[in-house]
């Protein structure tokens, strides 16, 4: 069963020019016919299908459109053209306790965040103990979140998200958060998800965590798909390409350097 179906997805962004600081500059810019922005395509005709139970990694250099793609799948961004259809309960794994209010207690934030991610009040009550247990911060649940350490906020946020029991889990650069122990724990949890036949959709620069979690990888570059194959192959080819690019950079630098 196809759970994510992206067809010819394009996303155009406007890249604003440096803003005019004075009235004079603004008028000159207007006279030059400067619209104040350039257009560029963050995604250009991207199509792929994800089957239920697959785990997909998106890799590519900065600005290649990975997070934009994730945003469109999460329904936060709208494609300029093309369509994405998603089947099942989808849940973004929010980094650093996004949406947590510093003045509310851990408990209150758990209920707010869980409802935002699609858990009903009853369900949250049912798995509340398990959430606290997983985050290992039971003593702090009634203290305001602003008194938490960064690590505690991350743990709690992660814990809520993995308890939402989504069909599709979206992960944007949040693998490898927290201390060593919590990293192992969260990785185990994600692998559990996979065993249960859930779909993972991961964006990461950490190629090793892509290899740990994903079976398949999509390599994006400047908004286009370069490769869409098994994770090992794509990661190897990507590493090679980056290496080759760095070599050519170094050579160019050597050529341009004045001979002593």
């Amino acid at each position, binding site marked *: 069963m196809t759970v994510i179906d992206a067809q010819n997805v394009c996303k155009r962004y406007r890249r604003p020019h440096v803003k005019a600081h004075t009235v004079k500059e603004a008028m000159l810019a207007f006279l030059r016919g400067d619209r104040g922005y350039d257009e560029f395509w963050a995604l250009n005709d991207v199509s792929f299908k994800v089957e239920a139970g697959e785990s997909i990694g998106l890799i590519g250099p900065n600005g290649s459109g990975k997070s934009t793609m994730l945003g*469109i799948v999460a329904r936060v961004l709208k494609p300029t053209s093309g369509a*994405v259809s998603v089947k099942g309960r989808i849940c973004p794994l929010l980094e650093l306790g996004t949406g947590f209010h510093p*003045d509310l207690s851990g408990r209150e934030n758990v209920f707010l965040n869980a409802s935002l991610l699609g858990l009903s009040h009853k369900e949250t009550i049912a798995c509340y103990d398990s959430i606290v247990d997983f985050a290992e911060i039971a003593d702090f649940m009634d203290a305001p979140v602003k008194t938490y350490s960064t690590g505690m906020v991350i743990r709690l946020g992660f814990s809520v998200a993995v308890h939402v029991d989504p069909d599709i889990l979206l992960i944007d650069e949040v693998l490898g958060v927290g201390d060593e122990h919590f990293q192992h724990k969260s990785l185990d949890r994600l692998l559990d998800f996979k065993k249960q036949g859930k779909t993972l959709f991961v964006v990461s620069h950490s190629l090793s965590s892509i290899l740990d979690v994903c079976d398949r990888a999509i390599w994006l570059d400047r908004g286009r798909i370069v490769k869409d194959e098994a994770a090992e192959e794509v990661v190897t080819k990507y590493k090679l390409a980056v290496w080759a690019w760095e070599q050519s950079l170094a050579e160019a630098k050597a050529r341009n350097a004045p001979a002593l």
Partner: protein
Amino acid sequence: MEGRRATAEGRLYACEADESRPMTEFLEVLRYREVLWNLVRRNLKVRYKNSVLGFAWSLLNPLMQIGVWYFVFKILFQHGEPNFMPFLIIGFLPWLFFSQTVLDSTACVTQEMPLVKKAYFPRSILPLSALISNLIHLGLAFVVVFALFAIWGVSVNIHYLWVIPATILVAIFAYGLSGILAAWSVFYADVKFIVGNLIGLWFFLTPVLYPLWQVLGKTIDQPSNWLEWLLKDNLPRLKQLFLLDPISIAVEGYRSALLHGGENFIRVSAGPKLTEAQAAALQVSLRHDYPLLPYVIGAAVIAIATAIIGQIFFQRKADLFAEQG
């Protein structure tokens, strides 16, 4: 996991380039109602967090404000209406509700930006939660007002119910403005500064500190035919604007409902009882009845139109929120 799943349970959604959805948005808000209640609860809890008196501030704050006006106008300037205190309190309620809702919702999307960029939920929930939190504050204020009424020995009567349509009028109008301002302030940070100042001006254009008849000035006898009266252009156009402002209408509506036994809801509340000599000196006739009904309808039309425009504007901009900042 057993139990009911509130949202997004096994349902197919498509995210397409051009999809407009006034009705879907309403259904989505219904689906996400638990989020709405949680946000309302959070707004209420957070506003007075870290203050010793906590929730009591939502009542003490306006009362102290009213105390200041009472001191300035009644005691320093020896001015103001008879029964100035109840006059101020009642008039201030709908204004406070309106201005707080508008100010809160202007910031509601920008405040939640980190969340808006990561998670999907119907964006209308944000201004709606600001509106509902302030409705609850208004409800609490009413508890205090009725307590004061009991102390002053005012008897409760059926005309109090006129407060309900007046409140609905303000709520619709405020929600419309909220949609426009919330969406706009995502793209231009200037909006929140402008709104802050305009609200300050609007306060003085709303008959909270003075009765409406003072603006409308010389009054005319009750006409037999409203249509004829309107066409005869008895009020200068500029002054008619006061009567088309939903907030002014609501303020007068609150006063007539709670202070004048509902008699004047469709007319501006009467000024003080004057002798003929005083009236002549002030160039004010003894009758202070304005036929308000056409204006009430006009204000309602304006409020509803604002709500529709605001909602459409908000919907159209909502898809771009996550691209900002």
